């Protein structure tokens, strides 16, 4: 007999592969011991500013968050005006679709203090707060942005997570409140009605954004979302849990509640003012409600990440968008709450009807009822988010 050569069989190969994979797994996990800390410090991660020599700026924003020319969608009037005025070339990309997803995209670079290739990115309050906490953002120079100090809405000036807008300047703001479809149900005034009214059973959605849904619930219990205790959070969460268990709440959504509300599959929901205004243009029976107990005010913020090499250019752009006339031009297109004082007067010239809309230019009464969610530290954020996710089913 010659030496036994065993032909390669599928099973033999599979067993071999699985075996070696298992060995590798054991060896590999011994070698790879955990992950490094993602926390950065101002001294540890220093960014160089090349704005003096490079007149460029990379700007990442959400889709449909910038005014475009009615005839030519590739033209962005307010941005083009900035380019011609300052000579700074802006590479504008609409690559932010979801805060969590975007975080996943830039997390590895920022954790290692590397460049993301972006000079400005626009992210929502809580994500901005997380990045500030992680030390991933560059501090902005207020003296280079006089318009911001002069024109920002007072309620956005001292937010719990970022006093004096040192790191985050609102691009647009909005409200999270209640909405209903008047063709399907009668008027809704309070959060409690939404959670308990029998005729709405199974026809209600709430937002999967914890701060918006829980903020409204905390306020409906008479507590302040900007300053609450763990017990108060648990009380509010139990209230939500009862509504989920009773089948009152059908599901938790991102933006996707809007078509369901328009069709009447859901009768009422926790929703965002910007979406509801858009729906209201097409069907006036769809209405946004500011509950008497209060409404949540959120913003999407312009942030300059570490290792972004055009900070001064970025500050120039932020300053530009806080000119009332520019802000009005933008607000006329995007229909969110304009964070710039004085834009309302400018809007009168463009579109008086929009200027009178309290969901774009809220009045004092509405702003006094609005709250920004408390700044959470990492432990709190994880604990609250885990509890909330457990109730919403994931």
């Amino acid at each position, binding site marked *: 007999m010659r030496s036994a050569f065993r032909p390669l069989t599928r099973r033999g190969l599979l067993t071999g592969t699985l075996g070696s994979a298992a060995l590798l797994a054991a060896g*590999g996990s011994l070698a790879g011991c955990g992950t490094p800390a993602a926390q950065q410090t101002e001294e540890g991660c220093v960014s160089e500013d090349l704005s003096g020599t490079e007149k460029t700026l990379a700007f990442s924003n959400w889709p449909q968050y910038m005014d475009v020319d009615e005839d030519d969608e590739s033209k962005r009037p307010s941005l083009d005006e900035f380019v011609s005025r300052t000579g700074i070339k802006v590479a504008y990309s609409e690559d932010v679709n979801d805060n969590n997803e975007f975080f996943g995209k830039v997390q590895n670079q920022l954790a290692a203090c590397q460049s993301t290739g972006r000079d400005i990115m626009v992210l929502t309050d809580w994500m901005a707060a997380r990045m500030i906490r992680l030390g991933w953002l560059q501090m902005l120079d207020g003296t280079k942005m006089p318009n911001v100090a002069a024109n920002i809405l007072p309620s956005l000036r001292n937010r719990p997570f970022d006093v004096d807008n040192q790191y985050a300047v609102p691009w647009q703001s909005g409200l999270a409140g209640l909405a209903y479809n008047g063709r399907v149900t009668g008027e809704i005034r309070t959060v409690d009605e939404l959670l308990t009214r029998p005729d709405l059973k199974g026809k209600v959605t709430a937002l999967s954004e914890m701060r918006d849904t829980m903020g409204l619930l905390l306020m409906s219990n008479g507590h302040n979302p900007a300053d609450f205790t763990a017990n108060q959070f648990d009380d509010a969460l139990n209230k939500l849990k009862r509504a989920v268990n009773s089948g009152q709440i059908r599901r938790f959504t991102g933006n996707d509640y809007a078509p369901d509300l328009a069709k*009447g599959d859901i009768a009422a929901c926790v929703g965002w003012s910007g979406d509801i205004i858009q729906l209201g243009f097409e069907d006036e029976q769809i209405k946004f409600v500011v509950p008497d107990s209060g409404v949540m005010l959120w913003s999407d913020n312009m942030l300059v990440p570490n290792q972004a090499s055009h900070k001064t250019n970025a500050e120039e752009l932020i300053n530009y968008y806080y000119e009332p006339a520019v802000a009005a031009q933008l607000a006329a297109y995007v229909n969110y709450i304009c964070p710039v004082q004085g834009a309302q007067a400018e809007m009168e010239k463009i579109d008086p009807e929009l200027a009178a809309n309290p969901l774009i230019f809220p009045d004092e009464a509405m702003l006094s009822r609005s709250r920004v969610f408390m700044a959470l530290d990492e*432990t709190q954020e994880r604990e609250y988010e885990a509890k909330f996710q457990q109730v919403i089913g994931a």
Partner: protein
Amino acid sequence: MSALAHAPTGSGQPASPPPAARSGRHRLLPYLLLLPGAAWLFLFFVVPLVQLAAASLYDPSGSLSTGYTLTWAVGNYPTALQAYWPQFGRSFLFAGIALVLALLMGYPLAYAIAQKAGRWKNLLLVCVIAPMFTSFLVRTLAWKTILSDNGWLVGLLRDVHLLGPDGRLLATPIAVVLGLTYNFLPFLVLPLYASLERLDHRLLEAASDLYASPLRTFRRVTLPLSMPGLIAGTLLFFIPATGDYINAELLGTPNEYMIGNVIDSAFLVRLDYPQGAALSFLLMSAILAVVFGYLRRAGTEEVL
């Protein structure tokens, strides 16, 4: 996996073993040919898998800002299972029901296309595959419209009193199972079609010559001959269906969430990497256990 679909139905291996080794180079040749595929698998499957395994054993009190250390925290597994066993059970239940429904629809469909369609065969095949040209997400969103509370389907079902006046389909387990059935049906039909297409008519004739009833012919001839396709199809259907989270997310409510939704939120929302990794591994091992059990029962050396 697509190779499974083309597993020969007859005797798989050539009867005579390959000639014994003549030279070293010849002996190495099969391994050299394997090299590109193996390198690919190693880089994009084994390495991430090892990382995931390590992540599932990280100290659960670590965090993004402080980093994680590998402490062999096996406790992550029972903790994760305890918190999310309902979603686990639901994944297997929903995928199982969807599989049964898909088999009831898919087998006759594949049989008809393979054996009875004649010149319509190619057109029908295109009809099965065509929806796959649009995105998974878009197809699932289309089901939202079809099952909508004010849509024609719910209206019809209410009229014939299959649904109560306030009954609905969207946001119920029914919608999720329907979505799973629909979305993964082609994965079941195509391998089945491939093995049914090669069904030897002479064997069926022989069976009827021997006075076998059509039912018996099916049970003793057609079904055993289509086994490789059936097994490949069920696996291709069941494995992705169990891990799916889009259908539960779009067509269901929190009460229908499957384990995929939990893993998604652990990684992207809660940033609890050890738990997310532990859940992923639990899911993988549960699926592997089911698959191996199934293959052992089905006893098909040819497929694996």
